[in-house]
């Protein structure tokens, strides 16, 4: 072979050295994601011992059904809040619709554990009901009622903060993908209910599955809300086994159960994506909303306001009131600011690494056209489906094993922050890859090809043509990763060094110490920064001509 061959689709047959080096550039950052999983899988082979036997006979079933029930209830509520709102927003023109189109996404900026603390006193309002149950039905039912009260609030908090995943995908499907058949059904004189049930819902199934899978991931990953309301989920079980009881191998095995659940979520999404025959293919056609005024318009407005109120406005208002009261007293600004700086520096470092890695993976695939790099990209995307508890256990195991090696004792002291950044990288690389990949996809392949025929090499083409066009996507990827990491709780709580707080862990600590009103100010900082991260998302969701 006389000269370099690096062509889309064809370089696999005979590779030049530069192609191999470039492929390595794409594979290395993706393979890093597989390390913690590999570590967990290897350690899971070790004998379980008495602790595991005890877990299986006494606790595992409880963890499993509680996790299953939580996922089911949260998903049901998220669908109930998200789907009707998306349908009304897509098909009805009512007063306030323009504001609601971006406002309905706001609960994504409200971390569930922050909303949980805002709703913490709701359970207290149930006390008269509990007393009535005890007096009427006895102690057993009193305890059950207490449990149900906590479950109710936990499900409402999770459902109301996670419904935007459903809303976004359903709205996109109703307003765009299904526009032509919906209009055809309308022209055939079919009523709105029938259109919704017989045309819109079946067509939106793949989109709903995509949103639902995200709700499932977030629910099984949750630690803040479940811990706060005393729900014995698998994630809580992993950390209890590892941190409270010191049984790492039990935690590893439990984490694998979480992985099975997450894989189930992925399969659900993939399965539905396979049935794309339901989509109409009228990709760029937007539905014209029907004017909805009077009492009907008011009802639709109220229906759309409920999720926003429960998921954002009520907890947000509560936080603002508490913050106002707390500011008058002696508030620990120093600790809050230190925690904010830790959050900022950690999220900044990790998001920078993530966007660089995403760029390396996607750009090398683009420049070299090596087919195997598609798998590297898939591997990078895997992280988002891996439960946080599993990543935490995997990274924790890696750190402890590295620190145990001769001459590496220093790692025990300093590796926690590095390990934390690595854990963020593993978990959130997908958040960076998706917008970067979307950005590259938007650039026509012929731009790359024409640059090559003008005498410019593949890497120089990436630098001179692709990068100037893709930078908004890089910025979007970095922002989304930054915000996700900034409010991340589960990994941080487990892997952070001793006496090292981020805003998220600071809030949890204050909550654990029953200083809930004091937690309002760091919570508001967290919510405000998360709102910035929503800008690219709301831009995408409102990209419609009407």
């Amino acid at each position, binding site marked *: 072979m006389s000269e370099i061959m690096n062509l889309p689709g064809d370089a696999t047959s005979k590779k030049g050295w530069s192609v191999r080096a470039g492929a390595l550039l794409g594979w290395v950052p993706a393979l890093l994601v597989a390390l913690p999983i590999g570590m967990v899988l290897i350690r899971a082979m070790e004998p379980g011992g008495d602790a595991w036997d005890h877990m299986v006979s006494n606790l595992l079933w409880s963890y499993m059904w509680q996790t299953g029930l939580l996922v089911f209830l949260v998903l049901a509520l998220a669908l109930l809040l998200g789907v009707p709102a998306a349908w009304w927003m897509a098909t009805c023109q009512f007063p306030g619709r323009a504001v609601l189109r971006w406002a309905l996404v706001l609960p994504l900026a409200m971390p569930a554990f922050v909303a949980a603390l805002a709703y913490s006193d709701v359970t207290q309002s149930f006390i008269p009901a509990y007393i009535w149950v005890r007096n009427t039905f006895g102690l057993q039912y009193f305890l059950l009622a207490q449990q149900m009260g906590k479950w109710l609030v936990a499900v409402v908090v999770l459902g109301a903060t996670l419904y935007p995943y459903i809303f976004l995908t359903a709205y996109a499907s109703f307003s765009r993908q299904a526009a032509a058949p919906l209009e055809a059904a309308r022209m055939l004189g079919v009523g709105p209910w029938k259109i919704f049930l017989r045309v819109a819902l079946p067509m939106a199934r793949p989109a709903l599955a995509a949103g639902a899978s995200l709700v499932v991931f977030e629910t099984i990953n949750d630690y803040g809300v479940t811990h706060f309301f005393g729900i014995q989920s698998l994630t809580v079980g992993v950390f209890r086994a590892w941190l409270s009881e010191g049984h790492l191998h039990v935690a590893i095995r439990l984490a694998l159960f979480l992985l099975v659940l997450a894989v189930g979520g992925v399969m659900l999404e993939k399965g539905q994506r396979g049935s794309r025959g339901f989509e109409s293919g009228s990709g760029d056609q937007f539905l014209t909303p029907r004017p909805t005024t009077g009492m009907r318009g008011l009802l639709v407005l109220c229906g759309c306001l409920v999720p926003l109120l429960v998921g954002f406005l009520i907890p947000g208002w509560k936080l603002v009131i508490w913050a106002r009261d707390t500011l008058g007293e002696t508030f620990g600004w120093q600790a809050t600011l230190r925690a904010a700086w830790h959050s900022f520096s950690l999220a900044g470092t990790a998001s920078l690494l993530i966007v660089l890695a995403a760029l390396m993976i996607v750009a090398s695939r683009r420049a070299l056209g090596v087919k195997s790099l598609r798998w590297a990209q898939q591997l990078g995307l895997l992280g988002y489906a891996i439960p946080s508890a599993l990543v935490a256990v995997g990274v924790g195991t890696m750190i402890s094993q590295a620190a145990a090696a001769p001459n590496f004792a220093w790692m025990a002291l300093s590796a926690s922050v590095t390990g934390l950044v690595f854990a963020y990288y593993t978990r959130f690389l997908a958040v960076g890859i998706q917008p970067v990949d979307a950005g590259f996809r938007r650039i026509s392949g012929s731009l790359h*090809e024409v640059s090559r025929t003008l005498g410019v090499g593949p890497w120089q083409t990436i630098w001179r043509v692709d990068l100037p*066009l893709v930078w908004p996507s890089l910025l979007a990827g970095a922002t989304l990763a930054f915000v996700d990491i900034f409010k991340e709780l589960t990994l941080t709580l487990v892997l952070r060094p001793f006496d090292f707080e981020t805003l998220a862990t600071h809030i949890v600590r204050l909550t654990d110490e029953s200083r809930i009103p004091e937690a309002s100010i760091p919570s508001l900082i967290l919510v405000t920064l998360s709102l910035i991260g929503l800008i690219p998302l709301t831009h995408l969701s409102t990209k419609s001509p009407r």
Partner: protein
Amino acid sequence: MSLLEVQHVSKTYARGDRPAVHDVSFTVQPGEFISLVGESGSGKTTLLRLIAGLEMTNTGSISLDGRQLAGQGVHVAPEKRGVGLVFQHHALFPHLTVAGNVSFGLGKASASARLRRVSEMLELVGLPEAYSRRYPHELSGGERQRVALARALAINPGVLLLDEPFSSLDPLLRESLRDETRRVLKACSATAILVTHHTRDALAVSDRIAVMHLGVLEQEGAPEDVYHHPVNGYVASLFGPCNFLTLEETTDVNHRQKWVRPDELQLASLDQNRVVMSGRVTQVTYGGGCQDVTLLCEHLGEKREIKVCHKGNWAVKEGESWAVTTKTDGRIGTGREAS
């Protein structure tokens, strides 16, 4: 000596069930404008991409000006081939001005040399110099196409490849830009290969036409040859309606089979004393310059639809019976003896 030599080139895609290009050979002379014509999936774009180096050949070789670009163990990267390419949708870099686009491939040339080259190219394609500061989104479709042409020509390519460059333009603009492109290419003596499925474009601008079908080169020749003497039914029908007839020469009794275009036939009144092909008119449509008449005739013992482009002073109506003759001296064989 030929400038571009394509020898026995074949290409099969990994997921393809048949070769996209199969054993294609042709040459292009310096300064020649050749068109590759065919339907979608005929392999013409693949052949263009093989020449550009954007795809790798499975077998065969490609040489440009005596230098082997592709062949056994050789594949020169696209950026090292010295081949220009103009895409259907222009592929202008949206973040660069017209000047930035045109000078993109000029490498390490000095700023003044780049400016000079941009001016030359804009003048060549008929764009005012003030356009050099505009961005692609500020240009019309035709202006973008001119910039794409200027950008490809700026690097002095050994051969310029044009991939359906006029397809995205409306018909009026397409015709004027097509003629303008030919003028520009001839003005700078550029060698060019145009890929198109618009046969009128190919007939209008090409020195030579190569017809591709299912990856195979069916016919190659001057536009008149390909139009009037197609080698088979596919080539004949690609350039418009055609009748496959057996003609009787008046000079001798030899019969010869030939593809005859409707505009080479004419209608005549039925003459009982002469042996002519006749038939009933089944369809008449107005085709602009003539009436497109379809007759059901008996030809060599079988019923056949014959299409005639009728330019006579009288209007033909469906249901009438007419004789069909050629405008030249050839008569259409009937299989009957003259009475």
